[in-house]
């Protein structure tokens, strides 16, 4: 069993935006912040497969993106 992410989603998003805020345009529309009234969701790297290791998750995803580019294997 994986730990359930304790925060409600908007908080998570806000925290993230704080971290990324200096370098990147926010991609999540501001007006929706705080309005979401559904269940909270966990992040993809939480739970079973990556057990919270975000870097490993990002590496895995990066690998998968590359495999969609056949130029990587064919010259």
């Amino acid at each position, binding site marked *: 069993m994986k730990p359930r992410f304790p925060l409600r989603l908007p908080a998570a998003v806000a925290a993230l935006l704080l971290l990324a805020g200096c370098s990147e345009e926010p991609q999540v529309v501001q007006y929706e912040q705080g309005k979401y009234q559904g269940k909270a969701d966990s992040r993809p790297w939480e*739970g*079973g497969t990556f057990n919270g290791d975000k870097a490993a998750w990002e590496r895995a995803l990066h690998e998968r993106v590359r*495999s969609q580019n056949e130029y990587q294997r*064919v010259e």
Partner: protein
Amino acid sequence: MLIKKNAAPGNAFRQLASPVARHLGETMDRRAFLRRSGLGAGAGVLATQLPYNLIGSADAASPAAAPATGGGEGEEVVRRTVCTHCSVGCAIDAVVRNGVWVRQEPVFDSPLNLGAHCAKGASVREHGHGEHRLKYPMKLVDGKYQKISWEQAINEVGDRLLKIREESGPDAVYWIGSSKHSNEQAYLMRKFVSFFGTNNMDHQARICHSTTVAGVANTWGYGAMTNSYNDMQNARAMLFIGSNAAEAHPVSLLHILHAKETGAKMIVVDPRFTRTAAKADYYARIRSGTDIPFIWGMLYHIFENGWEDREYIRQRVYGLDKVREEVMKWTPDKVQEVTGIAEEQVYTIAETLAKNKPSTVVWCMGQTQHTVGNGNVRAMCILQLVLGNVGVSGGGTNIFRGHDNVQGATDVGPNPDSLPGYYGLAAGSWQHWCRVWGVDYEWVKGRYASEELMTKSGITVSRWIDGVLENPADIDQPGGNLRAVVYWGHAPNSQTRGAEMVEAMKKLDTLVVIDPYPSATASMAAMVRKDGVYLLPAATQFETSGTATASNRSLQWREKVIEPLFESKPDQTIMYAFAKKFGFADELVKNIKLVKDKQGWDEPEPEDILREINRGTWTIGYTGQSPERLKLHMQNMHTFDVKTLRANGGPCDGDYFGLPWPCYGNPELKHPGTPNLYDTSKHVMEGGGNFRANFGVEKDGVSLLAEDGSASKGAELQMGYPEFDDVLLKKLGWWDELSDAEKAAAEGRNWKTDLSGGIMRVAMQNHGMHPFGNAKARALVWNFPDPVPLHREPIYSPRPDLVDKYPTHEDKMKFWRLPTLYKTLQDKVRDISKEYPLIMTSGRLVEYEGGGEETRSNPWLAELQQEMFAEVNPKDANDAGFRNGDYIWVESPTKAKLKVRAQVTQRVAPGTVFLPFHFSGWWQGRDMLEYYPEGAAPIVRGEAVNTATTYGYDSVTMMQETKTTLCRVAKA
């Protein structure tokens, strides 16, 4: 939530919710996707429920780490298999838990498909649901199918066949094998039917690429795609003629569009503006059935402008002068008159191919399924020879085969005219195989009605109906008519003249269908019969293991994914059970280990069958692909280069992926396989080669061997030479390079029959010479009815004036045991285009395969294509007074009428009607649902185009004419 499959026979494995709305009233237009379900007012009108009882867990274990067996409680295993829907050979990772196939993952490592799939490949996991499959043996009783036990089925079917054999001889039973069998099953089937005592057997290759195999093999040696899908990345120009690869071989487009992206020119010539044409740089519309004039038209410009490769022709081509005479008769005006393609278009295409070399050509059913099919394909070969494109990376004739293992089944399977490996039917061939099988030649001879029938080609699948219906006195076999037919993995609606087929089915004594999805045959038979029909459930390729040969001649090993569902059994197990019943079980498996399955049945082990194939199939180099080597390839796919298919390091270092045949010599010789045939730029031990010396060394005083200076790289003799045998080896003074054991085996034999492989080893390894000799390719195939391909109008031609100018062949009285009509029929229907003015042609849809029962039973695919349709040009539709989406009648000169939806589109030209060939289950306007065995009807049913197709056969191989006949259309 997971439900463990119960292995006991007779149990329903899973209670699935009611099958997806079989009676779905809603019908869909192929193109109007946007209007469809999901978008219609958000209604999801068709929605029904599939159960969520197949829950996968988080992780697919990495395939390399997957244990070969396993799958204990909750544990996930990954089994690597290969898509069974076409010859591209896309690899699939099947995730299995508790014996249930829970997920399907892409195999990015595969050098053939790099993880990609079309709709069919992306849906194969549905085989593990298999709701619409035949679940247990059934028998037709009083017009209804009833469940019976396996024991009863084997006994009753066996007794009936034995009785017929007794009364009318073994040739009264006709066996239709399958290109969807694995190599092991197809091979065992050839052997099995031989032991039953007849050559009356065939499979899909007859009606798919038989003309290619015969035409191409007679030109230069082997009847197969010369290069590979991957190698097309090296082409600088590509001509597709009679091939709609985007629908028929979708993942090939991955390589093709990549090539286009890096600068290759893509040309499509087709009567239809296909989806492949939509991707092309250049498209020309040709009148169906006029390929030879078009090809000669191109060659006319090539010769006129001196674009031919003279040195190549001098060294490697025989008999081109005669071709040239014929070609120069095809002046641009004549070409345009016959084909409808204007001079500048023909010129542009010829120039593109000639000036962007290496250039390659691709053809499929659009070339092969004609009365002049063998001529069409040879004309293509000649084009490539003239341009010097054969035996060249990026060039070649890329002949895309159809079914996943049609190449392999052609190579080693149930062919009426040859033993495995194209050995022919002469006594010497039989003796060779009897040695491999470990059985007595005299015993096998005794199984046949006579030595004459043992060496005479059987009836073809395209004509079995005539074997039943023809006047027995006119049939060239003493027993007369066929009395029983066994459909073992073949659809009936893929053969022409369906209207006559039901008559033949009516007349049969016994009809047996062995198939996971036997329903097309079952329903046609139940429509006209009350009894004498048996249905036996076969397992799919995901429920057994074995190899399949992709179009590029690479073999891939499929692991068994799941246990056979319901009561189904793998084909090799069923064959063995019948062999026991027929009394030749021991002979069938002399060298083959038996393993017990979960119900205690004996299964001949696929690995051992492959080893036997390895021991005997020297001609085409199926000798080096041991199960061990192939399995190693499957687990190390990532080490193979995508463009060359060669492993760079790793455990398969130097091998080409799947050891594309010919992979000569014993596995120990470590031949790497041959990526591109006849390639002199490589050493024979590196997959190089040259044209085969298969037709003697001279003809009418002219040498057939290659000229001096032309031989594979590193060959000790850089000149033409004949094929190797013991005599040649002695003459060359190389005999003593054989070991004593090899000498004993090789004495009096040649490279094809020396079971030790010594002759081959010495020639190749020690001297770099090709065992099959080094000859020229034959532009002139003197043993064919038209040594130089000639244009002949189709039998049902829309142009009576051209019929007079370019008439078809004379009738043949004894041709594959049957009288065959050409000229008399053509004369009779010369003016029939007055009544039936439109060309009727057929082809592929991406969602379905072959006869379509399997794919139309798969809800994920069936939803995408819910109705049979005909493409009609707006002009013809307006003339006939119907509109897009109307029901129409398509009627052919046989008077058979098809009720289909009109798809009014400019995809076809005025005067041409296109129908897809994957449908069945409607008969001339009537739904046949009531005739299906309970629960085994496919989700989507529709008219079979072949209900209405007409008579017409190739003059060499008995290929059926499906691509050019006539019809008329009217609003229904």
